[in-house]
């Protein structure tokens, strides 16, 4: 494959498209598919045929605004229709070339205008199961450029210049990581794509894998060239069947086009990728646990160092990056590291995809430049809290993150700013809560999650999270005491400082952040036996007697 060949494929796709006056893009991401957008697409095909108009109906990946699904986008007019049902197909077909169907039109300019799409630039515009569609949008140009015009060191330099940091949550500089693996001794090296998106309430990786799998593969290929790897694995959750199917299809197509296998693009570069299915363990998102899982063992983490960059899969130097990190690679190589570094804040460059969910009007997937304020995300892009309720907190970073109150809304979103206030970037889940959520109960929910997901290898995490859960359950039930609260805080410190891996080290974050910003809710539960949000079922508990423990203390 050369640049000319890529151009030829792109040209043939464009020629095919030129035959039509309109393109009807139907979202077939998981959200819209669950509302039968596949049947709707069939109806659209029939309706277009019946109307005799020249229009092409295409299956695409996620368009982002899941709340308004199923979505249909008409190009080149860029008319977006929401809540489209199969019965609407004739109306839409009839409107082509004329006035759009006003009743179905989605006018959420403020939702889309603030967004900058880099990772998601192809989502909603290409058929994720057609490699030629991807090639027609500059796909694999970056790979050809890297293989033919750049040395591995040049590639790493560009990634370092871009300031890209790991999008899985840790925020480790990607260029630095690549450089370490490239320098590691040994001829056999591995590239692993971490698609074990265990964080409940986040679905960025799923969406990227479902909408644009070729982009992730291209990122892995470039990484493999840069560090000198010949074998790669994509680790995906088994709970994501559609993502697995599209990825399988993507690998097969790439092999057929000579973009995977031996002598890629007529160079001496060889690389092949296999898919590995996760089996439902949150801890496998941790890199050493993920490696154990690929090796066919229980997914328990190992102490670092040695880091996987030096000794990873089967003891060989291994590069592990998140799906979204790999999806950022191709545009950086194509447009240069400086272009990427121009976006975002001082120490967090580029854009970040967030899954905006919870009590918010426009739930779905968004991509925004780093440094944007939480207020802009929630009030403008997200459309605020619905049903007349008031905003209470936003939770970022999943079970390792924290809850931020109204006072923090003007905070710019970046790795460092979030860490400073007790939350973290995490993989990009952003869950909005309103006045109907009890923050003590939320903390209990996350600790329960960490308790059940703890792998059991180290004691602080295994026993500590269980104890914290008991204490929080007691507080929620209205039988907690001030001593319990004190013990809880002490346990938070112990678990945080002494756990083996990231799961335990960050498990207390939801408790600590709710204690920091919503302490009065804890006190209400303990002292007045009252749940301010009316979530906890305290009335069922017999009237509180003076606790003997309180007297003893």
């Amino acid at each position, binding site marked *: 494959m050369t640049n000319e060949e890529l151009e030829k494929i792109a040209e043939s796709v464009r020629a095919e498209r030129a035959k039509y006056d309109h393109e009807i893009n139907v979202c077939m991401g998981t959200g819209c598919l669950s509302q039968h957008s596949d049947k709707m697409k069939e109806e659209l095909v029939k309706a277009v045929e019946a109307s005799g108009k020249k229009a092409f109906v295409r299956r695409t990946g996620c368009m982002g605004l899941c709340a308004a699904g199923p979505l249909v986008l008409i190009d080149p007019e860029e008319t977006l229709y929401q809540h489209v049902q199969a019965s609407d197909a004739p109306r839409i077909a009839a409107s082509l070339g004329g006035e759009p169907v006003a009743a179905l039109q989605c006018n959420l300019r403020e939702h889309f205008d603030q967004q900058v799409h880099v990772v998601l630039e192809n989502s909603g515009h290409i058929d994720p199961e057609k490699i030629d569609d991807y090639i027609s949008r500059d796909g694999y140009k970056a790979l050809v450029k890297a293989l033919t015009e750049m040395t591995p060191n040049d590639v790493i330099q560009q990634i370092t210049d871009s300031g890209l940091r790991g999008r899985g949550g840790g925020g480790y500089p990607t260029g630095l990581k690549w450089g370490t693996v490239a320098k590691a001794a040994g001829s056999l090296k591995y590239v692993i794509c971490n698609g074990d998106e265990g964080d409940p*309430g986040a*679905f960025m990786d799923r969406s990227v894998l479902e909408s644009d799998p070729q982009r992730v593969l291209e990122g892995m290929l470039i990484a493999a060239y840069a560090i000198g790897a010949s074998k790669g694995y994509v680790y995906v959750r088994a709970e994501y069947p559609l993502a697995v199917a599209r990825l399988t299809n993507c690998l097969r197509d790439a092999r057929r086009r000579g973009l995977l296998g031996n002598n890629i693009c007529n160079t001496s570069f060889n690389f092949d990728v296999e898919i*590995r*299915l996760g*089996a439902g*363990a949150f801890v496998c998102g941790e890199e050493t646990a993920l490696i154990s899982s690929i090796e*066919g063992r*229980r997914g328990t983490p190992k102490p670092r160092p040695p880091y996987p960059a030096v000794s990873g899969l089967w003891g060989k130097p291994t590069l592990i990056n998140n799906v979204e990190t790999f999806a950022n690679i191709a545009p950086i190589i194509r447009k240069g590291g400086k272009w990427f570094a121009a976006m975002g804040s001082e120490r967090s460059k580029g854009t970040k995809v967030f899954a905006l969910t*919870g009590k918010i009007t426009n739930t779905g997937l968004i991509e925004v430049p780093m440094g944007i304020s939480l207020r802009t995300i929630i009030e403008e892009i997200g459309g605020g809290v619905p049903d007349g309720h008031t905003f209470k907190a936003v939770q970022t970073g999943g079970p390792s993150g924290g809850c931020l109150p109204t006072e923090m809304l003007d905070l710019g979103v970046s790795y460092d700013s979030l860490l400073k206030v007790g939350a973290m970037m995490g993989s990009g889940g952003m869950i909005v809560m309103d006045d109907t959520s009890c923050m003590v109960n939320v903390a209990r929910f996350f600790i329960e999650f960490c308790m059940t997901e703890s792998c059991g290898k180290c004691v602080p995490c295994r026993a500590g999270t269980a104890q914290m859960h008991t204490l929080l359950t007691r507080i929620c039930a209205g039988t907690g005491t001030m001593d319990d609260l004190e013990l809880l805080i002490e346990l938070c410190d112990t678990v945080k400082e002494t756990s083996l891996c990231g799961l335990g080290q960050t498990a207390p974050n939801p408790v600590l952040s709710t204690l920091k910003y919503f302490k009065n809710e804890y006190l209400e539960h303990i002292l007045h036996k009252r749940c301010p949000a009316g979530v906890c079922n305290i009335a069922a508990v017999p009237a509180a007697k003076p606790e003997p423990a309180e007297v003893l203390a």
Partner: protein
Amino acid sequence: VAAFTPPPLPSDDKRWKIVAGTMRKNGFARHALIETLHTVQSSFGYLDNDAIRFVAKSLRVPLSQAYGVVTFYHYFSLKPPGKHTMTICTGTACYIKGTDLLVAKAEQHLGIPKGETTADGQISLMTARCVGACGRAPVALTDGELQGHMSGEQMLAQLERWAVE
């Protein structure tokens, strides 16, 4: 060293051939354990003792290690599923939208705790940690089919239909 010959298939059930196929594709390598268990579960619906023994022996993995892997990962089930399965998502977004109430309602209706199957083998009640459709929370999977904005009434109606189907 004598060449390794894998043990014979446990029965002439055709599904074992699919399982053996996965192992052969991976050259009977030990690291194919999880892949193979995935195949067993997708073919048989669950993993019983015979299956775990067969896979462990074929891949030359200690039985303890195979059993350890099966019990470590939530995705693997040691019990046969009911005729129908209601899986309620208990991810954060769904929790904020009140799935704990849905789970409680289903438990009360079926008279079984989550993770169990009714005595007549009709319905299994499961919970999942996020199926990644948070935009449509609360979410439930009815026999694997994703249903968004699930209400209590909708769920109970489905359970009642399944009780006799």
